[in-house]
């Protein structure tokens, strides 16, 4: 393994082997020590001061508390097939519990199937005035169990606000509630 660390630090490993070695190297104290020592040797050969200095343990301990900086990635296979916008896999910060909890967050009446993101009008709802409801103190959607009952995230609302396009979706109704004018 150390020979690979030696090649890695010279940039002489192919991408796949590099990735594997980075993982292996950092997984053990011996690996990290080899990485460190080999660099020290180069520094000494070039006449640099080799004063003892090691903050790596404290830096990495502090970073363990940091929320992980997630980088761009494609829709991964681990996310499930059908997706409407309502459905989100919530990946919480690394330092906090609930990781990878999958919840269905849908507007009332939605079947949760792609691609329509529009709610259907519930039968029997009277619309007194066609303005978006402003009064709903309870969340209008459900998250399936395995997730604490936090207020639901109405993704579609934010999406509509982000896209700034008017749509019937903004006129959805809440089941068995009559809309009141927003005055």
């Amino acid at each position: 393994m150390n020979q690979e660390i030696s090649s890695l630090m010279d940039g002489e490993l192919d991408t796949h082997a590099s990735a594997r070695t980075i993982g292996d190297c950092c997984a053990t104290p011996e690996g990290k020590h080899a990485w460190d020592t080999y660099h020290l040797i180069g520094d000494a050969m070039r006449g640099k001061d080799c004063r003892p200095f090691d903050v790596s343990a404290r830096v990495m301990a502090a970073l363990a508390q940091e929320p992980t900086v997630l980088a761009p990635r494609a829709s991964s296979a681990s996310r499930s097939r059908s997706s409407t916008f309502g459905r989100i896999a919530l990946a919480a910060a690394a330092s906090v519990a609930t990781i990878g909890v999958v919840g269905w967050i849908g507007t009332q009446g939605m079947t949760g199937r792609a691609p329509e993101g529009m709610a259907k009008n519930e039968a029997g709802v009277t619309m007194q005035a066609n303005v978006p409801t402003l009064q709903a103190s309870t969340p209008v959607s459900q998250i399936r169990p395995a997730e604490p009952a936090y207020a639901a995230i109405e993704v579609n609302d934010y999406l509509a606000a982000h896209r700034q396009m008017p749509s019937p979706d903004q006129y959805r109704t809440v089941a068995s509630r009559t809309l009141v004018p927003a005055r």
Partner: protein
Amino acid sequence: MMRVTQAWLPALAFGAAAGAQAAPQDDPLAWLQRAANASRTSAYSGTFVHTNGERTSTVRIAHAIIDGVEQERVEPLEGQPHEIVRRGDDMICYMPEQKTMRLDKRVSARFFPSIFRGPPEALAENYTLKLGNQERMLGLDCQWIRLDPKDALRYAQRLCVEVTTGLLLRARTLNERKQVIEQWTFTDLKMGSQVARSDVKPTLQSRVKSWTTDAQPRDEAKGVDTGWEVTNLPAGYRKIGEMRRTMPGRQMPVSQIVLSDGLATISVFVEPAGMPARPAEAASEEGTTSFFVRPAGDNVVTVLGEVPIAAAQQVGRSVSRRP
């Protein structure tokens, strides 16, 4: 190198310093400027398909300048029937099932083929611009333009513009592995004199005998000081809008700040936290859209954008009250 110059649209302003080096045909920035102009000034009518992650939607669009006024009709074909008809800055959204016409001012949001949210010159700071191949699409010659991000805060774009008018025919967003994660593409298209006046007129009006008009502003105040700011803007992003808007299910208006790098856009929402308050951050990506929620004292910050999650996180984590 000698080239035969073509007749370029006289309305083009290249904006380059005196003695611009590249011939227009070789300059990707010039192509982008043409594309930006074309969506505003050309006549076109057709259907495009938008795929994002695993979602698909189909939209009919028609656009023309008639008697000096820009007119447009947009009809998404999924979901409940509706169409948005625009004349200049005034938009009417016809929703026959709700029997409602919604009146609005023209939106500034990105909508294919008008995907630029700032002057194309600004893009060169954040993306490396290159010309790609030429290709034939829908019986038309088009030129690919490549925009590669200079950092991990935005996605790569591939734009294909028709060579005569500069109209964007296909736009793709790629992730860092160069996989296509979002695409808009025209599947049929008429241009120029083939576009009929009736293409930009409303068609759903006749479905409803008596329409209710909703003219209430959704954005309570635009250009307002919401009292919030993003202190650690990701490189290349500028604030392009700030407003308060009413949103369904909320008694108080929600503050919204919009950031853009000229192509990619991020919206930041700040509002009082619901009960029970979420204790932790949550992040998610779907196609190109990143979604990030973060509790902030008594408030909750929600970030949404066609950007890598890292950009959404950076924005969301640096939202604070303006001093």
